[in-house]
C-alpha cells in the first residue's frame, strides 16, 4: 500500500511540529528547579492533566492495535476500555491518589521506598527505567517502519527526526512540555479520526447496516452471527469467541490484575496526575480522563469493525493481504485513511498518527528521566547535591534516554526476537505489582521484606506458569511451554490473562506470609499518609458536586455499566 501526501498535507505536518517545538521553547523560562522539570512544579489544572493522562497511554500502537483488534475480534475489543481501564481509573482516583499525591513522593518507586524499603524501590525503579526506554524505542521503530511502508520515507531519517523533536521539547520544557503536547495530541487524534468514523459509517450504511454486514464475517469464522457486535453474549466459553477467552479470565486477568496493575501503579500515567495543582485536581485527573476513554471505542475500534465489514462485502479488497493470506490487520487505519481522506484532511489524519507515536515516546522519556534522576541517581550514585545539579541531570538523562531508545529501535528492526523476549520479561515483572500496592496501601502490617519477596515470587510465578502453558498451534519457546505443556489455551491472549492471575496470586499470598513472619520496620507514625487506615480522609465537601471525586467516580462507573448493557 502506498499513500501520496500533497503539499497541504506536508504543510499541516510542519505547522504541527512548529507548534510542538514552540511550546517547549515557551516553557523553557519556567524550568527553574528540578520539581519544575520533573513534576511541572505541581501547577497544572485538572483538565490538562486529565487529557494528558489519557493521551500518555494513547500511543499509536494503541490506536493502530485497537483498530486491528476491532477488525479481528469486533466489539469485544471494548473490554480493553470498559472492563480493562475505567474501573481501575476510578479506583486510582478515589482510593490511591491520596497516597501518591499526599505523601509528597515524587515518583511511584519513591512511594515504595517511603512505604516499604530501599530494595523494593530499587527493584521497581530499575525494572521500570529499563522498560520505559525500550518502549520508547519500540514506538520509534514502529513509526519509522510505518512511514517507510506507506510514504516511502527513509527509515533512518524518520528515526532521527522523531528523536530530535521529542528530545528538543522535553529538554526545554520537561514534563510540562510533554503534558501540554499530549493535550495537543489528544485533540489531533479526536479531530483526525472522527471524520474517518463518520465517512466509514456512512459508507457502510449506518450502524444497523454495519451490524448486518458483520454477520458473514462471524459466520465465515464459524462463530454465532452476532459475535462481532455483542460484547458479552459469547463469552460463556473460550470456544465461542474469536479472542479465545471466557468471561472469568477476562474479568480477573484483564479487568482486575492487568488493568489495575497498569493504571494504578505505572508511573508513566500516574506522573501526569502527580503534576496537578492540588489534591482535588490530582484525584479528578483519572476521572476526567475516564470520560473520553469510555467513548474512545467509537473512535478507534469502530473503524476496524467498519474496515472488516467492507472487506467482506466488497470482495476482500479493502484490507491489504499479508504474507499468510489473511488480511494485514495492522494496516486497518492506514487503509481507512487512504480510502476516505482526500489530500488536505489526509494531512490532519497523518499528523494525528505521527503525533501519537511521538507522544508515546515522550511519555516514556519523561517517566524515565524522573525515575533515573530521583530514584537511581540521587538515591544510589550522587546523593546530597544541589537542586541545580539534579535539574541538569534530568536534561542529560533525557538525552541519554533518547539515545538508548534509538539503540532499542535499531535492535527491534534487526532482532525481532530479542524485543519479544524483553517484552515477555517485562510482562513477568509487571503482572504481580498491583498485589504489592494493594497490600501496602490497605494493610499496615505489610513489611518491606514481605513486599520484596512477594514481588520476586510473583515474577517467578509468572515465568514458571509461562514455561508450563502454551496456546493452541503455538511452538514451544518464546510463546511458552519450555518447561513442559501442562496447560493449553485457546489463544495467546487467554494464556497471558491467566499468567497475570497466577503472578498476582503468588505475590499476594507470599507477601502476606512473609509479612506475618517478619518484624515491622515502620511505625504507625511513619506510615501516616502512606496507608489507608492511618491517613485522614481528604476533604472535598466544600466543592461543587462535579468536582467531587466520589460523585464523579460513581457517575463514570454508572455510565460504563450502561455502555456494557447497551452493547451486551
Amino acid at each position, binding site marked *: 500500500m502506498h499513500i501520496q501526501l500533497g503539499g497541504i498535507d506536508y504543510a499541516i505536518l510542519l505547522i504541527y511540529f512548529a507548534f510542538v517545538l514552540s511550546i517547549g521553547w*515557551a516553557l523553557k523560562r519556567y524550568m527553574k528547579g528540578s520539581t519544575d522539570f520533573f513534576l511541572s512544579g505541581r501547577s497544572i489544572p485538572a483538565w490538562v492533566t486529565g487529557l494528558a493522562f489519557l493521551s500518555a497511554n494513547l500511543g499509536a500502537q494503541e490506536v493502530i492495535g485497537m483498530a486491528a483488534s476491532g477488525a479481528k475480534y469486533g466489539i469485544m475489543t471494548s473490554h480493553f476500555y470498559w472492563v480493562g481501564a475505567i474501573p481501575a481509573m476510578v479506583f486510582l482516583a478515589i482510593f490511591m491518589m491520596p497516597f501518591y499525591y499526599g505523601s509528597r513522593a515524587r515518583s511511584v518507586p519513591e512511594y515504595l521506598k517511603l512505604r516499604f524499603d530501599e530494595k523494593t524501590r530499587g527493584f521497581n525503579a530499575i525494572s521500570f527505567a529499563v522498560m520505559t526506554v525500550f518502549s520508547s524505542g519500540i514506538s520509534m521503530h514502529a513509526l519509522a517502519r510505518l512511514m517507510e511502508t506507506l510514504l516511502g520515507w527513509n527509515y533512518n531519517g524518520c528515526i532521527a527526526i522523531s528523536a530530535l523533536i521529542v528530545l528538543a521539547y522535553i529538554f526545554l520544557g520537561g514534563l510540562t512540555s510533554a503534558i501540554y503536547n499530549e493535550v495537543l495530541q489528544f485533540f489531533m487524534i479526536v479531530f483526525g479520526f472522527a471524520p474517518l468514523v463518520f465517512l466509514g459509517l456512512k459508507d457502510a450504511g449506518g450502524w444497523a447496516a454495519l451490524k448486518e454486514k458483520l454477520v458473514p464475517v462471524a459466520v465465515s469464522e464459524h462463530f454465532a452471527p452476532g459475535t462481532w457486535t455483542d460484547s458479552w453474549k459469547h463469552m460463556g466459553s473460550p470456544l465461542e469467541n474469536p479472542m479465545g477467552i471466557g468471561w472469568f479470565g477476562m474479568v480477573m486477568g484483564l479487568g482486575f490484575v492487568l488493568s489495575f496493575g497498569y493504571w494504578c501503579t505505572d508511573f508513566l500515567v500516574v506522573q501526569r496526575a502527580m503534576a496537578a495543582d492540588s489534591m482535588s485536581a490530582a484525584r479528578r485527573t483519572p476521572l476526567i480522563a475516564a470520560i473520553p476513554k469510555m467513548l474512545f471505542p467509537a473512535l478507534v475500534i469502530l473503524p476496524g469493525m467498519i474496515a472488516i465489514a467492507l472487506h467482506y462485502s466488497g470482495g476482500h479488497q479493502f484490507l491489504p493481504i499479508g504474507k499468510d493470506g489473511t488480511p494485514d490487520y495492522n494496516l486497518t487505519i492506514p487503509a481507512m485513511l487512504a480510502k476516505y481522506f482526500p489530500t488536505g484532511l489526509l494531512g490532519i489524519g497523518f499528523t494525528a498518527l505521527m503525533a501519537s507515536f511521538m507522544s508515546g515516546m515522550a511519555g516514556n522519556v519523561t517517566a524515565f528521566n524522573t525515575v533515573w534522576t530521583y530514584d537511581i541517581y540521587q538515591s544510589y550514585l550522587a546523593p546530597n547535591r544541589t537542586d541545580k545539579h539534579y535539574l541538569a541531570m534530568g536534561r542529560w538523562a533525557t538525552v541519554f534516554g533518547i539515545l538508548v531508545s534509538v539503540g532499542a529501535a535499531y535492535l527491534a528492526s534487526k532482532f525481532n526476537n530479542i524485543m519479544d523476549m524483553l517484552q515477555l520479561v517485562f510482562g513477568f515483572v509487571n503482572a504481580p505489582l498491583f498485589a504489592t500496592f494493594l497490600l501496602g496501601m490497605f494493610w499496615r502490617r505489610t513489611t518491606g521484606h514481605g513486599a520484596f519477596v512477594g514481588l520476586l515470587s510473583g515474577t517467578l510465578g509468572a515465568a514458571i506458569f509461562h514455561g508450563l502453558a502454551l496456546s493452541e498451534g503455538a511452538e514451544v519457546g518464546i510463546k511458552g511451554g519450555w518447561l513442559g505443556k501442562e496447560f493449553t489455551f485457546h489463544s495467546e491472549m487467554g494464556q497471558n490473562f491467566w499468567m497475570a492471575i497466577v503472578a498476582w496470586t503468588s505475590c499476594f499470598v507470599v507477601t502476606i506470609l512473609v509479612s506475618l513472619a517478619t518484624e515491622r520496620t515502620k511505625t504507625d507514625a511513619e506510615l501516616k499518609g502512606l496507608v489507608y487506615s492511618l491517613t485522614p480522609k481528604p476533604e472535598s465537601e466544600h466543592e461543587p458536586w462535579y468536582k467531587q471525586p466520589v460523585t464523579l467516580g460513581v457517575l463514570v462507573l454508572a455510565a460504563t455499566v450502561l455502555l456494557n448493557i447497551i452493547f451486551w
Partner: protein
Amino acid sequence: MNFDLRIPIGIMFSLFGLMLVVFGALSDKTIYETHSLGININLTWGLVLLLFGGFMLTLAWRAGKKQK
C-alpha cells in the same frame, strides 16, 4: 504558571481549519468523488476545526479578562 494552553491549541486549530476551508473551496472537486463519498469533507471539517479553534480562543480570552 502564566501560560494558557488554550491559546496555542486555539491558534493551531483555527489555522488548520482555515487551510482546509480555503483548500476545500478551491480544490478540484473530483477528489471528493474518489475519497469521501462525494462530500467536500475539507470544507465541512475545516469549518468544524475553525469553530473549535475559535471556541478555545474565546475561553482563553475570557479567562484572561477575568484575571485582569
